[in-house]
């Protein structure tokens, strides 16, 4: 049973059939999936959700599929970690990390959007899936396409982290590196999508794809004991995730699953690519595109598709946005790893670095609940840490050499006689 009603233009409100469309033909606004919330309210309760398997499909009535998902049955329901150590370091009373660094199967939140997009693409009869990607999406499209036996084409900027390129090719995807930035890759993909008629998950399937991100927000609310956080900090590339987290909270309020306690939504970008943050700080509705230059490559989108709506979410929720430098990103990655044992990718360093800044600025109240969104795994962006970590000490396999080392480090331990 599907509760997905239609596609609707976010700008002019014109409705369209549930097909592979993403732009309003009348005003060029983006299309969004709308649902029959009255009917969902009749059939879905917190108790029903709680009894279901721990994956993102426990919210399936709120996802844009006509039938059961056909790929990614185990995606989602990643840990919401109560971060006592990091909270102490930052002076926060109630801090949580939503950890999609351990999402299945490709260790980033993109598995959520891709399993929805590919399942929907198959419902619509597509045989080939494709994407324009900064890396994580590439990994996920390639893996999930392989899992359901589809052919996949992945288009990336040619200078991505090696791990992300290998982690795409290994699944048998055709990987095309474009000499240019993500924005140039995206532009080319729009042309290819028009000409070849493939399912580009983040272009012509975008309205369905983007809905998958809502599950990140649903899980946070459920894992907090059916409560919304007072503050949430979200990394932004194209800006889709932050708008969908906001939508997920609004939907849960509408369905009566949580109380509206006024969540402030904060956005995080790298200073080397912060078109949305710039607009928020200037109080402008216009997003001025930038040429990205940051180690946070997964966030390096200079012309964000959902930039306007992201800025609106921050503004209307009473939140704000900040950016951090490459040095601040690395130091935040290390802080998270050393305090909580969570190795996030560079984007996680952006989000935590920004959180720190917002606390220092007094924009986040230290006594309120705070959720930091970690969306990808540090093992994929290890090269960013080159030269920033200490080297292992090399010794011969002799106890005496180890003891010299302990002495040299100035430490004393109790030893058995």
């Amino acid at each position: 049973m599907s509760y997905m009603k239609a596609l609707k233009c976010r700008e002019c409100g014109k409705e369209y059939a549930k097909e592979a469309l993403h732009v309003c033909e009348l005003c060029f606004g983006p299309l969004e999936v709308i649902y029959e919330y009255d009917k969902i309210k009749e059939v879905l309760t917190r108790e029903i959700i709680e009894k279901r398997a721990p994956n993102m499909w426990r919210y399936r009535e709120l996802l844009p599929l006509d039938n059961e998902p056909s790929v990614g049955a185990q995606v989602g329901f990643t840990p919401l970690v109560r971060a006592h150590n990091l909270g102490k370091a930052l002076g926060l009373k109630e801090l949580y990390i939503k950890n999609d660094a351990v999402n299945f199967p490709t260790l980033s939140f993109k598995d959520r959007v891709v399993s929805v997009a590919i399942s929907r693409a198959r419902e619509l009869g597509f045989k080939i899936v494709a994407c324009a990607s900064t890396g994580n999406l590439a990994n996920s499209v390639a893996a999930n396409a392989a899992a359901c036996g589809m052919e996949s084409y992945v288009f990336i900027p040619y200078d991505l982290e090696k791990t992300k390129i290998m982690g795409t090719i290994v699944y048998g995807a055709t990987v095309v590196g474009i000499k240019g930035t993500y924005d140039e890759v995206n532009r080319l993909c729009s042309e290819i999508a028009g000409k070849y008629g493939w399912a580009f998950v983040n272009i012509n399937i975008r309205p369905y794809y983007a809905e998958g991100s809502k599950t990140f927000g649903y899980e946070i609310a459920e894992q907090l004991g059916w409560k919304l956080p007072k503050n949430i900090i979200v990394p932004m590339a194209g800006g889709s995730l932050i708008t969908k987290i906001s939508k997920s909270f609004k939907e849960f309020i509408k369905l009566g699953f949580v109380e509206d306690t006024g969540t402030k939504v904060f956005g995080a970008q790298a200073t080397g690519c912060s078109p949305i943050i710039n607009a928020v700080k200037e109080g402008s509705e216009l997003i001025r595109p930038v040429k990205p230059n940051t180690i946070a490559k997964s966030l390096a989108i200079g012309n964000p598709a959902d930039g306007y709506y992201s800025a609106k979410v921050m503004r209307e929720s009473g939140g704000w946005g900040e950016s951090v430098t490459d040095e601040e990103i690395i130091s935040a990655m290390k802080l998270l790893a050393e305090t909580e044992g969570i190795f996030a990718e560079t984007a996680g360093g952006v989000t935590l670095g920004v959180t720190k800044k917002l606390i220092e600025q007094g924009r986040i109240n230290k006594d309120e609940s705070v959720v930091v969104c970690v969306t990808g795994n540090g093992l994929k962006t290890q090269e960013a840490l080159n030269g920033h970590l200490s080297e292992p000490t090399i010794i011969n396999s002799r106890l005496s050499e180890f003891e010299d080392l302990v002495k040299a480090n100035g430490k004393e331990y109790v030893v058995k006689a």
Partner: protein
Amino acid sequence: MAIKVRIPTPLRKITNGSDEVAAEGCNISEVIENLETNYPGLKERICEADGKLRRFVNIYLNDEDIRFKKNLETELKENDEISIIPAIAGGKF
């Protein structure tokens, strides 16, 4: 002033299939009015009722976004080239 205007796919129904048309005008507003005279219905597709450019329509003058020039009042010179591009397709720097 003769100006070249590139037309995106969704608007080509109005321009009888042409991907590039000629128009006249001293600034972007005048060009849009001139296009509307020759291709009725085109203006409402790219402009709001109050005449402002729709949010998800970008106009580039010789590869530069007019929002960062003088917007619809941006002046034009002979042989300038204008592109109308849906924002969702991605912009330029």
